[in-house]
């Protein structure tokens, strides 16, 4: 098992008497997408800034890609890409000139730059935006450009701080496609967001509230622990309902009658249940099936409720 890409222990940051981040332990495996969720003001940005060496922690240790970030913050810079809350494209420069600027800082120029940027331009669909200035571009394009810039120097880790804030739904989905492509190529991605449903795109979720970690697990496990589970609704004529209830009932499942038919709530979507539902649906002509996945916001609401209790 390879060493984790990010390892933070007891990470704490105080501003005067206010504790923004309180003894966090974060472990991020290489090549995974790690979501760092929390409400505004919960300490997300502070944490990410400490992880990349922009802010010095009051206590704790941070090792990124094998480098002690607190002692040698500058050494990680070549290996990480960062996209801050304010996408830092310089106004007054075209996108292309911004690319040349950042490339210059990483030592990429000439043919290599042309090659890399050409590829990124294709992949992120920024061809038309290249000659434009940031102030003339839409939010979605600016975010994509920001991500492209962050990956220009082929970093092994990506730190994205609320990359989809203020972006429309369609662009957000596109964005996550790109992130998942990066992870598939072996890049470790650490993402903060306050869109709770985006957790489903990730391999691991940490949930922070008032500076403390209140959940730290893969999304499915959180689902399992904190939600009633998946909800399947079967629209059936009254005559078939009793039989359906009997067929669908079982351990860990709750079955009930609804106005239209039957609904069953189960923590898992296992094969047996799905098969039973399929049989019932096939048997009754005009039967309709609807499967509802527990929504992340609801799950987190429960996580929060439990933590604060």
């Amino acid at each position: 098992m390879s060493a984790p890409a990010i390892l933070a222990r007891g990470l704490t940051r105080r501003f005067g008497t206010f504790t923004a981040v309180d003894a966090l332990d974060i472990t991020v495996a290489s090549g995974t997408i790690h979501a760092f969720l929390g409400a505004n003001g919960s300490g997300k940005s502070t944490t990410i800034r400490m992880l990349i060496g922009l802010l010095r922690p009051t206590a704790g240790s941070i090792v990124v890609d094998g480098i002690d970030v607190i002692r040698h913050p500058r050494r990680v810079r070549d290996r990480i890409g960062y996209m801050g809350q304010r996408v830092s494209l310089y106004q007054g420069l075209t996108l292309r000139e911004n690319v040349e600027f950042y490339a210059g800082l990483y030592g990429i120029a000439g043919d290599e730059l042309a090659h890399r940027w050409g590829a990124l331009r294709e992949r992120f669909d920024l061809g038309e935006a290249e000659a434009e200035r940031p102030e003339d571009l839409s939010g979605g394009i600016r975010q994509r450009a920001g991500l492209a810039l962050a990956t220009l120097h082929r970093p092994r880790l990506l730190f994205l701080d609320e990359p989809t804030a203020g972006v429309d739904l369609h662009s957000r989905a596109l964005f996550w496609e790109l992130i998942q492509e990066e992870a598939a190529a072996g890049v470790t991605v650490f993402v903060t967001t306050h869109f709770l449903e985006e957790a489903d795109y990730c391999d691991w979720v940490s949930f922070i509230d008032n500076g403390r970690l209140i959940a730290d697990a893969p999304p499915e496990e959180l689902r399992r622990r904190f939600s009633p589970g998946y909800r399947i609704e079967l629209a059936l004529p009254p005559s078939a309902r009793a039989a359906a209830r009997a067929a669908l009932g079982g351990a860990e499942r709750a079955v009930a009658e609804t106005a239209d038919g039957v609904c069953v709530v189960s923590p898992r979507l296992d094969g047996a249940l799905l098969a039973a539902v399929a049989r019932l649906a096939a048997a009754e002509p005009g039967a309709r099936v609807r499967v509802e996945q527990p929504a992340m916001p609801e799950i987190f609401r429960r996580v929060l409720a439990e933590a604060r209790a």
Partner: protein
Amino acid sequence: MSWRRLRTLVVREMRATLRDPFTLTILIAVPLVALLAFGFVLSTEVKGLRLVVLDGSETPASRRLLADLAAHGTFVPRRVATRAALERALVDGTASAGLVIPADFARTLARPEDPRPQVQLLYDGAEAVLAGNAEVYLQALVEASGATLVRGGPPASAGVRVMPRALFNPRLDGKPFMVAGTFGFVLSFLTILITAVSIVNERLAGTFEQLQVTPATSVEILLGKLLPLGAMFTLDVVLMMLTAGIVLGVWPRGSALLLVAVSAYYVSISLAAGLLISGTSATANEAVQKTVLVSIPLVQLSGFIFPVRSMPAAVQWATTLFPATHYIALARGIYLRAEGVATLWPELAALLAFGVVLIGFALRAMGRRP
């Protein structure tokens, strides 16, 4: 430090600045406005001062005196009828000086034993600076007039006549003095102000943070901002020199190159000061307040307009600690007296010493992490 990275940063800053018409206008126009404003303002020549006259005598002799006073254009006499009118004119400031000629003026002049009539000169002391200048002129003109009024040769007793000769500036023109001083003002106040505000703004906009995640060091990042600013201000020095020459007719008597070199060094001192101020300011407004609080007294005490010699001894000593004082002395030496390194080395040394200290502080502040 990587020169390649620094060059990348500087190129970006220059590109952005050159494309920002507003900033360019400010950087160029404000120093020139300051130059023109200050350049015209200092005059040692008194002209057209309003003088109210109460002529109690109304004789050819008194009228002759008035004619002499009006002759050079130094004073614009206006007759009043009563003492009250004269006093009122002084109170509401419509006249800067008053002359009261007694009724027995002509008779006293004609007296053989002691032909010295008394006249009263009243000055609006509320305008002290003006009165100080007017006093001498009025006195001198009255004396000169008196010498011609007495019949029968030179007066009973005469004083010593002084032939003044002003070196480097025979007509005592105020312009070169002010032009050289304005360099000091612009490079002290405006440079610090613009630097401090620009850096605070960048910090607030978050663009510094993005750079801090790249391999660029804090020193490179800040130098990338300061070097273009420094270049612009040095260019301003050249522009001011040309403007002073073309519009005001004031060219440096000494080496223009030396002035530009010294000015470039002084600019770097001011950039350091601006950086230090920006480091302690959370908002642009705060940076402005601090700059104003620090710069303005410094400039006032640096000998820019007000003579350092006339200040209390402790303050005089303190002014030797201000880089601005030495820079203005250097600028004046080069502009007015064609001095060179040979005679200016004490000021140069002082400027060098203070500059090194301040720039040292700034470099240390640059390298610090939050």
